[in-house]
């Protein structure tokens, strides 16, 4: 290792300490608490309690054999029987033992376990019996039976077994085909193996292995393409409780519903949302097919997604979808993109008939859905792109960078970490839109829900903005550094600039994690106790009245977030268009202030500097500490 890199490394750590006010050790402690759904992603190092385990094929077999062996030893039974009883009780070996000893006869009967009769005499073997499948007679020694002694010829057994195997894992519980078989005796594994073809034998064995995962409530297969790993849940999960897992193949999914990982949203919401998406895709097509004619040239116009702003593809006339008026007369005065006051007013005057009102209602609900869907979809796509970029970065760029900067790749880990954070945050963010769609449906009618919605959007907005900054830095800034480094490979590398970039990216990663942690925790907790949670801080004097001293937000302050529901910005506001004043109002209400530089929400209302980046606090709360 060269001197350069030594210097580079030690320097960086010192600065990190002073600038971010947190040593590596501190951050590790935070990570433990933060316990993101994707915690399992990190290579065991920082997260002690991962509630699940990834089992590659070999480990899986070992575990399965161990489970079988335990039951065989404790119950004193053979492997075939152990397999059956474990399957019956979903591989829960303590339940197996309990049931076996308390209801011995019942359990055996249900499994078709029949006491093996004594060996039949030589005479019996020489005798002929009729096979009740083909109706031909055979010497008994050429026939086979389960423990119940219902004999069939080998060919008929083969046909029976082949057909059972082709019908799936149920063949593991194959029973005697005789209609006289009162005990419904199970067909022993040994008989299946004797008569099955080589291919069928391996199929049967595969079903036995699969049973260990598929009939087992604490196991599931990884959903990743071509991945043969199983996931073992190590904790007690409630029924239908979501659990995000990440496999060593990098597939992430929910253990419970097998959809893509979706913390903090419940499996039920995910299912309803995905079902709605597929149903709505038709609905949207229908709406799109029912276009309006251009008010100027009458050409049928398809509606642009989301926005009311229409442009005729033929005459380029720009108009409002709601009132069909010239778009030039629209803008902030008419209520912005999503609300047309002209339309609202005309409706009040009764200028619109029932038909158009009904169409309007249907459209409003579709518009609302599309608002959430578009954002869900956009973050979904951004995540896919980020996934590809992340692997490109770690495959191609890191080594080049390490080479040029003469830094060991382990020192460039922060870049990987930033990208992992981006991918995971995009995923969480997209699901928060599914959450938002269902959680605040009543926001227009219920002021409490509206208040919760305001707070939710505030947290979501913080998280989203922070993520955009992080994503941009990881994408553009890193790209610029790599390009620059490549061009100046012969010694002209700007170590200082890279150092600044490093600090910035680590800070942004950390801050973004913080925002998402807050958002995720709040969603998991729900908003019902929101008022109570923050009431204490408001009473402390940090509430709206305190904020008022800043003078900038007097108008909205009185109502707090509730006011946002009644300020006339009805319906869906574009987040970017949200007034600064609202943010500050929410700030006061919620009891934290946002740093202008790094966007971290500082909890300490008296602090003069940002806890994370140490930037002096600007605005009303800054400097004087006048919140108290």
């Amino acid at each position: 290792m060269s001197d350069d890199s030594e210097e580079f490394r030690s320097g960086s750590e010192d600065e990190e300490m002073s600038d971010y006010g947190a040593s590596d050790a501190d951050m590790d402690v935070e990570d433990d608490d933060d316990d993101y759904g994707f915690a399992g992603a990190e290579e065991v190092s920082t997260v002690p309690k991962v509630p699940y385990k990834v089992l590659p094929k070999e480990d899986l077999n070992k575990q399965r054999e161990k489970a079988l062996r335990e039951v065989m030893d404790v119950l004193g039974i053979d492997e075939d029987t152990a397999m059956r009883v474990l399957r019956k009780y979903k591989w829960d070996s303590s339940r197996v033992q309990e049931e076996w000893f308390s209801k011995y006869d019942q359990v055996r009967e249900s499994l078709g376990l029949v006491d093996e009769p004594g060996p039949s005499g030589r005479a019996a073997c020489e005798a002929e019996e009729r096979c009740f499948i083909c109706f031909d007679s055979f010497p008994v020694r050429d026939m086979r039976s389960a423990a119940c002694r219902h004999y069939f010829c080998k060919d008929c057994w083969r046909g029976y077994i082949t057909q059972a195997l082709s019908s799936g894992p149920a063949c593991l519980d194959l029973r005697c085909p005789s209609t006289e078989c009162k005990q419904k005796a199970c067909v022993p594994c040994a008989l299946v193996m004797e008569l099955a073809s080589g291919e069928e034998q391996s199929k049967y064995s595969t079903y036995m292995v699969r049973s260990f995962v598929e009939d087992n409530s604490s196991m599931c297969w990884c959903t990743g393409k071509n991945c043969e790993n199983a996931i073992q849940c190590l904790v007690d999960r409630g029924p239908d409780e979501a659990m995000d897992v990440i496999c060593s193949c990098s597939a992430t999914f929910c253990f419970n519903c097998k959809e893509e990982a979706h913390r903090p949203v419940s499996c039920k919401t995910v299912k309803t949302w995905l079902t709605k998406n597929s149903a709505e895709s038709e609905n949207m097509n229908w709406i799109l097919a029912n276009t309006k004619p251009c008010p100027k040239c009458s050409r049928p116009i398809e509606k642009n997604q989301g926005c009311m702003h229409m442009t005729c593809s033929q005459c380029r006339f720009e108009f409002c979808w709601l009132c069909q008026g010239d778009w030039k007369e629209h803008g902030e005065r008419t209520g912005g993109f999503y609300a047309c006051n002209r339309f609202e007013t005309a409706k009040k005057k009764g200028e619109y008939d029932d038909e158009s009102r009904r169409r309007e209602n249907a459209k409003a609900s579709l518009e609302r859905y599309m608002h959430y869907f578009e954002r869900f979809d956009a973050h979904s796509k951004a995540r896919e792109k980020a996934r590809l970029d992340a692997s490109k970065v770690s495959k191609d760029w890191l080594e080049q960078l390490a080479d040029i900067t003469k830094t060991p790749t382990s020192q460039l880990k922060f870049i990987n970490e930033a990208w992992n954070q981006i991918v995971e945050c995009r995923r969480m963010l997209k699901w928060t839109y599914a959450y938002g769609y269902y959680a605040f449906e009543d926001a227009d009618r219920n002021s409490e829900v509206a208040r919760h919605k305001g707070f939710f959007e505030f947290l979501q907005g913080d998280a989203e903005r922070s993520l955009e900054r992080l994503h941009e830095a990881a994408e553009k800034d890193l790209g610029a550094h790599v390009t620059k480094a490549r061009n100046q490979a012969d010694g002209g590398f700007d170590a200082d600039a890279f150092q600044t970039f490093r600090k910035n990216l680590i800070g942004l990663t950390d801050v973004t994690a913080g925002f998402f942690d807050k958002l995720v925790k709040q969603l998991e907790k729900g908003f019902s106790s929101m008022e109570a949670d923050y009431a204490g801080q408001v009473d402390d004097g940090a509430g709206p009245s305190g904020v008022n001293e800043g003078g900038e937000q007097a108008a909205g302050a009185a109502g707090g977030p509730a006011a946002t529901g009644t300020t006339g910005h009805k319906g869906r506001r574009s987040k970017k268009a949200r007034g600064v004043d609202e943010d500050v109002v929410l700030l006061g209400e919620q009891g934290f202030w946002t740093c202008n530089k790094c966007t971290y929400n500082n909890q300490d209302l008296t602090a003069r500097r940002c806890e994370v980046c140490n930037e002096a606090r600007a605005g009303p709360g800054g400097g004087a500490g006048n919140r108290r």
Partner: protein
Amino acid sequence: MAQATRLSTVAQRRIQSELNEWMRSPPEGCCLESCEPMTSWVVIMQGPEGAGGVRLYSDEVFRVRIDFGEQYPLDPPDVIFLAPAPIHPHIYSNGHICLDILYSGRNGGWSPALTMSKVVLSLRSMLASNTDKRKPPGDAEYCARVGNRSPKLSNWVFEDDKV
């Protein structure tokens, strides 16, 4: 009438044996109207008397068609009532019968050791044990939906052992 199906040797011999057996001792209340071709039988069934002398079906005569497939007896044959089908909570107007032994697969009860003798006796006892002469719920809707396709293509749920 179903088209003649090519049969495996096992199926041919098995059906022949069943025919012989049937001729020797036909199941109670049933007789063969036709077994030409060998893969498609029509059975005439006298409506049974119910328990305690209940005469729900005893004045009626039904016809059951049995179509054997290539994989018989590993696969069950198609078994339906010809019109007019008995009015019974598990028999649809198109003749489809909701009885587990007629179907293989996940919850079916077919066994290759079941003979047509046993099958028609089961059908008769299904009529005999019925006390409520009504059509299955959703009969019209079901018949409109499935038309004349094989009953084996329907997804059956067998829940009521009594009827």
